[in-house]
């Protein structure tokens, strides 16, 4: 009789891979810093998109940013829970991140805080997780 396959664990599928990590302070985003020209990039990269240097180091991104623009998506690929709101978030280290927004009513320039969340599901029903930014309510 053939061996039964091991049960697949219920862990969500992560869209962010190694770029999303958990440390003592909680969730963090790991990007890169170019050791030659100093720019920060996210997602992490082994090569600098500005000066082509391959001398890149891992760099933790700031957890707080400000909303530059956002749009609530009603129509899109099947895997996303809809509607979902996407934003460009500007971090204080000059990096712009595209991310799902969660929480209160977003507004331009509002401060947001890094988190992680479920944003969709695969056709097999596995949850899809990625980094999100939470709109802080005041």
């Amino acid at each position, binding site marked *: 009789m053939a061996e039964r396959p091991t049960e697949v664990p219920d862990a969500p599928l992560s869209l962010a891979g190694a770029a999303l990590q958990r440390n003592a302070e909680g969730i963090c985003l790991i990007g890169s810093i170019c050791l030659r020209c100093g720019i920060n990039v996210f997602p992490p990269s082994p090569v600098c998109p500005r000066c082509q240097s391959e001398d890149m180091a891992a760099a933790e991104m700031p957890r707080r940013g400000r909303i530059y623009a956002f749009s609530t998506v009603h129509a899109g690929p099947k895997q996303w829970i809809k509607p979902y709101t996407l934003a460009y978030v500007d971090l204080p280290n000059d990096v712009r991140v595209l*991310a799902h927004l969660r929480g209160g009513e977003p507004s331009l320039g509002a401060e947001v805080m890094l988190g992680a969340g479920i944003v969709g599901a695969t056709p097999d029903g596995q949850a899809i997780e990625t980094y999100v930014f939470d709109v802080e309510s005041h």
Partner: protein
Amino acid sequence: MREVEILGVGMVPFGRFPEKSLADLGYPAVLAAIKDAGIAPRAIEIAYCGTALGGMLAGQRVLGRIGLTGIPIVNVENACSSSSSALRQAVMAIGSGAADVALVIGVEKLSKYGGGTLPLEEEDWEVRQGLVMPAVYGMRAQRYMHEFGATAEDLALVAVKNRRNGAANPDAQMRKPVTVEEVLASRPVATPFTLLQCCPMGDGAAAIVLAASGVARQFRADPIRARASDLVSGKFEPGFRDMTIPEITVRGAHEAYEQAGLGPEDIDVAEVHDAFSIAELLYYEAFGFCRRGEAAAFLRDGSSDIDGKVAVNPSGGLLAKGHPIGATGAAQVVEIVRQLRGEARGRQVANPKVGLTHATGGGIAGFDHGACSIHIFSR
């Protein structure tokens, strides 16, 4: 570089044709352009086929149907700028003396994806996070409305104008005019856009025959001169970008005007990339048709109407004509050539002398758009 002239243009009406193969969509446009040019088919020495999602050897599949093969055929992919980029390659081939007569094809079949938003490159980081084109443009619109006070109605007016123009264009996918109320009441796609502010997905093809100016006059007494043929790529920027300035179009416009020795005031008619309502407003400014921040007023004043200062998207644009992405660039040229010849019945601009086409392709992280190709023509 030698001067290049457009001899013939042709297109098939844009629409949804899921039962037709890409090749079967494409070849009638080619036959129409050849007939319009008045050349023998075998006079074509080189062909460039623009398609973004048409698959391998698209040009060969189209030309194989009509037996125009054996010549060098190059397939060009630059997202929505695919066939405009193909045209630029053809212009360079003729300009440099590598060929005397060239064919450009633009062809796309998006109905194979069913409905929904345009499928983007899954390996792109932002696409993987959930980015779709309506959201990119939605964010541009949001910033523009915030910084310059444009209203939802201003955006809707772009769709109203272009749907009105498209109603007079037998090649347009959408033939019924719409009102501001209907535009704003259509279902939300990505804020602030409603369905009627987004270009429809569909299928179509267009083709252009062009030749060196000395050769062109053997076939037609009235070829249209190509005064500028420009291609720029977006600059990858990992940080802050002002989304209200379409920087790639600003650069391309500057280069095209310089090539042609012309300025915004010289343009009588323009087909620009109105994939979403906000886009056309941004492009009035990028091309210098009006000052920064004044696009909504320019539209409301009727300055971009067919009888306005510069007729923008008399074909109905992407919003009404449709946007089978690889075919769009070539179809814009079809419209401008017809306008310059006085053949655009029902939507004819009064005596235009100079026309412009603009197609810009996007959908990957870190770029305004990936590519932008602008052409200027005159008679």
